[in-house]
């Protein structure tokens, strides 16, 4: 029976990691539902972007309060995870604080963890107040009701509990306390447990801590907190072109070139027809490219985009954050559909356009790129909006009437207004 705890630990660990791996492969499968897009260019700039924006959190500090608090939690999260490594080794091999063998450095290490844990604790409490008491506007928009709101708070409770357990675990470790090294914070809590069965409390805290971490790991898949992993690939694959650039559809280019080429008989049926896609633009998630789908999974629902959006600021229905959340929700729905139908998608009579995102939202966008600029992790809601407009116009001819007028003017006179092209130089003689 001596090895029972080790065995239980191993089972817990591998189940936790196993489920996580399964979720990740599902995630990857869903993202791969998107169209292919070439991201092999400018690798140097891409690495730089990832280092600067994800690792360096460079865009977070544009809002200094939230930015600095977030950096505290982020650094705390990364650094304290070194402790998890020790817990895993201890758990698997029945050792106790295996790293303490490194001597006085161990005290420095744990001391750092304890300080960070305390800082994270404070930061998370402030975050909770911002969401629930101060009610910062961007957390109060209509798309933030229900699960998104709960999700935002749950993670804060998670952090509070995990950090608390870490300190309790240290405070009740008599041996560790007796070294009086590294117990910078926990020493103040140790007296609270005097007279109790500290050994038992220590064990309970230790087990709950690691179980909590495994639960957290598996919670990610269902949460906006996926960004702690996906922010890295997302900033790497994010656009490296000027923000004003919007891709030229290749299928259209082929068609246009064909039409303009006087040497080609327009009535002859050509092989070329095969390259015409079955659909222009996007009406559902499978019509988007995989980077856009990765974007959707990465979105932190922070609302920086929406709070900078001119349409949203002036009371229009459009919210770029909602565009991303809708895309993710629909993608999850499609993924579940595939799971329940043995690997094939069975049409469910629903799509992203209409069932999630309305025409009204799409037409309210000024393509100003404020959302793209504001996003701390290189998400591009605008590209999805424009891709869906393409579907509305090229597949459904469903543009607002005034835009149809504008377009037929361009077609007929080469200007969005009904003026004759031959009058283009008249200003010269005004």
């Amino acid at each position, binding site marked *: 029976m001596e090895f029972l705890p080790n065995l239980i630990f191993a089972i817990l660990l591998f189940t936790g990691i196993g489920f996580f791996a399964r979720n990740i492969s599902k995630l990857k499968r869903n993202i791969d539902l998107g169209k292919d897009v070439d991201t092999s260019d400018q690798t140097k700039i891409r690495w730089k972007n990832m280092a600067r924006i994800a690792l360096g959190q460079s865009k977070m500090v544009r809002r200094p309060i939230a930015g600095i608090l977030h950096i505290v939690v982020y650094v705390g999260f990364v650094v304290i995870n070194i402790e998890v490594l020790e817990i895993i080794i201890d758990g698997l091999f029945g050792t106790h604080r295996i790293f303490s063998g490194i001597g006085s450095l161990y005290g420095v290490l744990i001391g750092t963890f304890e300080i960070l844990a305390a800082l994270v604790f404070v930061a998370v409490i402030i975050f909770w107040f911002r969401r629930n008491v101060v009610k910062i506007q961007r957390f109060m928009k209509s798309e933030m009701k229900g699960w998104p709101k709960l999700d935002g708070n749950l993670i804060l409770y998670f952090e509070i509990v995990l950090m608390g357990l870490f300190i309790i675990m240290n405070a009740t470790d008599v041996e560790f306390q007796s070294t009086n090294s590294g117990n910078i914070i926990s020493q103040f809590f140790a007296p609270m447990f005097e007279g109790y069965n500290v050994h038992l409390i220590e064990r309970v805290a230790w087990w709950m801590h690691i179980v909590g971490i495994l639960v957290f790991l598996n919670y990610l898949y269902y949460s906006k907190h996926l960004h702690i992993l996906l922010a890295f690939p997302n900033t790497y694959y994010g656009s490296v072109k000027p923000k004003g650039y919007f891709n030229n*559809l290749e299928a259209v280019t082929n068609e246009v070139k064909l039409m303009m080429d006087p040497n080609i008989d327009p009535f002859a049926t050509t092989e070329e027809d095969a390259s015409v896609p079955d659909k222009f633009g996007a009406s559902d998630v499978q019509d988007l490219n995989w980077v856009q789908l990765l974007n959707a999974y990465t979105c932190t629902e922070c609302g920086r985009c929406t709070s900078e959006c001119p349409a949203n600021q002036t009371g229009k229905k459009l919210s770029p954050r909602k565009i991303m959340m809708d895309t993710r929700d629909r993608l999850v729905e499609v993924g579940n559909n595939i799971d329940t139908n043995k690997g094939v998608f069975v049409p469910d009579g629903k799509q992203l356009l209409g069932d999630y995102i309305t025409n009204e939202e799409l037409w309210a966008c000024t393509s100003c790129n404020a959302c793209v600029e504001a996003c701390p992790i290189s998400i591009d809601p605008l590209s999805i909006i424009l891709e869906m407009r393409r579907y509305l116009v090229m597949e459904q001819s469903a543009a607002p009437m005034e835009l149809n007028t504008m377009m037929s003017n361009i077609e007929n006179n080469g200007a969005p207004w009904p003026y004759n092209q031959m009058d283009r130089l008249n200003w010269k003689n005004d």
Partner: protein
Amino acid sequence: MSDVLKVPTMAEFMATGKQPEVLFWVGCAGSFDDRARKITKAFVRLLNKAKVDFAVLGTEESCTGDPAKRSGNEFLFQMQAVTNIEVLNAYEVKKIVTACPHCFNTLKNEYPSLGGDYAVMHHTQFLKSLLEEGRLSIEGGKFKGKRITFHDPCYLGRANDVYEAPRDLIQKLDAELVEMKNCRKKGLCCGAGGAQMFKDAEKGDKEINIERTEQAMEVTPEIIATGCPFCNTMMTDGVKNKAEGKIEVMDVAELIANANDL
């Protein structure tokens, strides 16, 4: 004001067997919109004064296709683009300057992969280079000490990271450049982009240009400067609504032309 503008066309240059230094892409607004035509002319006066060898396409110019593309009509956009590129390439155009950030963005970013590769400049960048090369100077202190705020056009600023050229020019006027709380990367849109110029706004509780005009009014400028014919229209409308007679809306090119009594 003597208004003998020299506006040679590419076709005329071609006839003499010469190449101009730069092609001035006038754009639809610059050609047809009453207010924007004034900007076009102010810019041409400056080009004339600096003796820049430029040409326009004139009746051979056609919409870049930007409003069609942003509306979702990729087909119409590419038809326009390919037609324009044929004309531009036939004239062997290498360098283009335009006073419209939408044309600027489209020509610079979206034409290359369709076969149209040009060095494209916004007119504020071009004017700045003329000043730096000593080909143009700013005379007269007409705007000395005036409070001027610059409204960043989205397609110049965020879309293409041009923030300083227009500001440098305003500062050369000895004016007092005041910044709105939302400026540069955080500049608020005027409400015209993405083909909104050509339609009514969706239901909401405010017009975007009014919001932006109010932001400008917070810094009590005498002049709102812009670098885009569409922003100009939107801000002019906003001012008409909110600060009629108190604030003027002017293009940076107009400021400089005015300072030079052109």
